[in-house]
């Protein structure tokens, strides 16, 4: 019998009941809650008169709807101008109070994007099963946890039963060996992976990311990669636990300490795939081959290296591909044959659970230091992923570098990643964005998103169009 993958181990250790029909009951260690996908779940509990199975397994923070402008933010929940957003954030506060769930409220200095706050606080730990009513829950897999997004019915289900009914996924290994050229980051790696396997390439799989390049990344970089596993179709992304993971977790507010720390570390050291583990699919990439990536279309798989040119639908044999390329070019207002470096930007957004951690902000600041945002760029936003990151960045003087360059320094939240608050693209605007989705309308009605790394976004802000950050 072959060995187990990391996913197999996590599945096995949380298996409550295997049913004859192939479904299984899986125990959930942690549920992360935010304001958008939880109100209907709490309502469901109330209607059916059920209590949460284990209050201490839940943790909440509002992020999607919160304003990021200091002025509006300073008023707390009551200060949120949009009454519908205000009600949703208020509803989260009310629900957490009623059900006694720990919540970092809007003005708590620890507040931030749920997927940034969880790891930062040690609320998410290696070896856990973690769910959240948000598809980017895959982020937490970077710590060697089994983490994935669920729908609101399942949020209610987990609250009420501490379990999830699941079918076991298949195993995929994405191996990136070699070394990354300087200027090429975790974001470029994951975009290159999606470009290779497609947005449905990982459907039905848990993807483990491995290889020298992945092992060489910081935990922040690993989170960027797992964050976008869902953009490759996989609900869960995973990375084996190593020294980097353990060092990262050590000393976090909700991480174990003392004798429990030693116990935990001993258990976490087992969290890797066995050398003879079987993967249903293996995909390999070389680090040296990866260049800075830019998406040109309306799906993350529509991605090219910075020296690429926009594809020509006329040259495509496959009718469906031709049609979707035509549609994307029309929406994006781009022409076949145009160089990626000729795409002009109206807006730059540095933030989101993909790229708003301190390392990302440092990388962007290094690029814009002493320079100015191009006159043709109407707006450049920098939105830290959490209050802690904001403080850290300010302590390092990064905020000054951004504002001196003409960028706006905001309060933490999802912001223009999905434009639920007032941070939106206007119709037809092109945006260099460090977020994870370039779908039609994602960042605002008619908005045109190009996904890039923080350094690439910063360089584009200064140049006014995409440039190769390797030559910066």
């Amino acid at each position, binding site marked *: 019998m072959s060995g187990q993958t990391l996913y197999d181990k996590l599945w096995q250790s949380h298996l*409550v009941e295997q*049913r004859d*029909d*192939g479904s299984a*009951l899986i*125990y959930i*260690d*942690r549920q992360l809650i935010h304001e*958008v*996908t939880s109100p*209907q779940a709490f*309502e469901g509990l109330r209607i*059916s008169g*059920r209590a949460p199975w284990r*209050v*201490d397994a*839940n943790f909440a923070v509002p992020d*999607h709807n919160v304003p990021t402008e200091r002025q509006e933010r300073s008023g707390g929940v009551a200060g949120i101008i949009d009454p*519908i957003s205000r*009600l*949703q954030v208020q509803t989260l506060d009310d629900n957490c109070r009623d059900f*006694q769930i*720990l919540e970092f409220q809007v003005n708590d200095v620890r507040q931030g994007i749920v997927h940034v706050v969880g790891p930062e606080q040690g*609320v998410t*730990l290696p070896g*856990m099963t973690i769910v959240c*009513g*948000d*598809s980017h829950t895959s982020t937490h897999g970077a710590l060697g946890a089994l983490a994935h*997004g669920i*729908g609101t*019915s*399942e949020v*209610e*289900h987990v609250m*009420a*039963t*501490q*379990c999830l009914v699941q079918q076991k996924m298949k195993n995929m290994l994405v191996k990136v060996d070699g070394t990354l050229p300087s200027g090429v980051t975790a974001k470029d790696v994951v975009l290159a992976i999606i470009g290779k396997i497609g*947005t*449905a390439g990982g*459907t*039905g799989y848990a993807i483990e990311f491995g290889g020298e390049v992945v092992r060489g990344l910081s935990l922040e970089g690993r989170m960027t990669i797992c964050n976008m596993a869902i953009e490759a*179709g996989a*609900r869960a992304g995973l990375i084996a636990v190593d020294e980097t993971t353990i060092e990262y977790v050590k000393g976090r507010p*909700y991480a*174990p300490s003392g004798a*429990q*720390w030693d*116990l*935990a570390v001993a*258990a976490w050291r087992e969290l890797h795939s066995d050398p003879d583990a079987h993967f249903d699919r293996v995909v390999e990439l070389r680090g040296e081959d990866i260049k800075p990536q830019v998406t040109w279309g309306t*799906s993350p798989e529509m991605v090219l290296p910075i020296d690429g040119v926009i594809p020509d639908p006329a040259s495509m044999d496959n009718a*469906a591909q031709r*049609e979707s390329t035509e549609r994307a070019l029309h929406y994006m207002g781009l022409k076949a044959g145009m160089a990626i470096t000729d795409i002009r930007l109206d807006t730059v957004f540095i933030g989101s659970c993909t790229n708003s951690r301190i390392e990302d902000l440092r990388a962007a600041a290094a690029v814009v230091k002493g320079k100015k945002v191009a006159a043709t760029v109407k707006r450049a936003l920098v939105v830290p992923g959490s209050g802690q990151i904001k403080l850290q960045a300010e302590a390092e003087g990064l905020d000054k570098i951004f504002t001196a360059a003409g960028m706006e320094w905001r309060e933490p939240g999802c912001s223009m990643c999905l434009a*639920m608050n007032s941070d939106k693209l206007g119709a037809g605007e092109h945006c260099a964005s460090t977020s994870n*989705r370039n*779908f*039609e309308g994602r960042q605002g*009605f008619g908005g045109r998103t190009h996904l890039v790394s923080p350094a690439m976004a910063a360089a584009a802000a200064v140049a006014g169009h995409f440039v190769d950050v390797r030559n910066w």
Partner: protein
Amino acid sequence: MKSFTVLKGIAAPMDRANVDTDLIIPKQFLKSIKRSGFGPNLFDEVRYLDQGEPGQDCSGRPLNMDFPLNQARYQGACVLLARDNFGCGSSREHAPWALEDFGLRCIIAPSFADIFYNNCFKNGILPIVLDADVVDRLFQQMYATEGYELSIDLERQVVQTPSGESIHFDVDAFRKHCLLNGLDDIALTLESAPAIRSFEQNWRQQSPWLFDVIR
């Protein structure tokens, strides 16, 4: 949850690949704290010519008449024919809520995104995966025939076309059982409460750092 046994009615097209949940229900409507009333905003960005806002009365908004669901021949549709990777993107359950509220109870596509597929079953919607060439054939037949109706029998796992052709589909036994009977998942899982408790006890002993910390 509404049960799903036999469904017969008009089929309508959503003829593009990778339809994401932002397209099914744009994010501004996610601000609602209710789970009903999303139907008028289903496919909002392609269905109307203006930009929709939550809480707005949609009856007077300008319609995009190129969008099939606005056309007379597809009125009252309860089956949606779709292409590859339908429902990709976010985990928002508002997507199936909007489809269901609109009256679409069955979606047929060559493939679905995982989370969306799963969310459908929780909301009385049956997602059916058929081979791409079979789906393509259904699209052609539908375009050629005004009033094209499909009949879906979940018990027998069969889609029937107007010409009498029966197409078999697969569905996982547990999900089928729940959908046929409109069963509440939570009540079903709670039948396993003793197993959950005994697992939890062991787990707490093995991994005490996972318990009683977050509060």
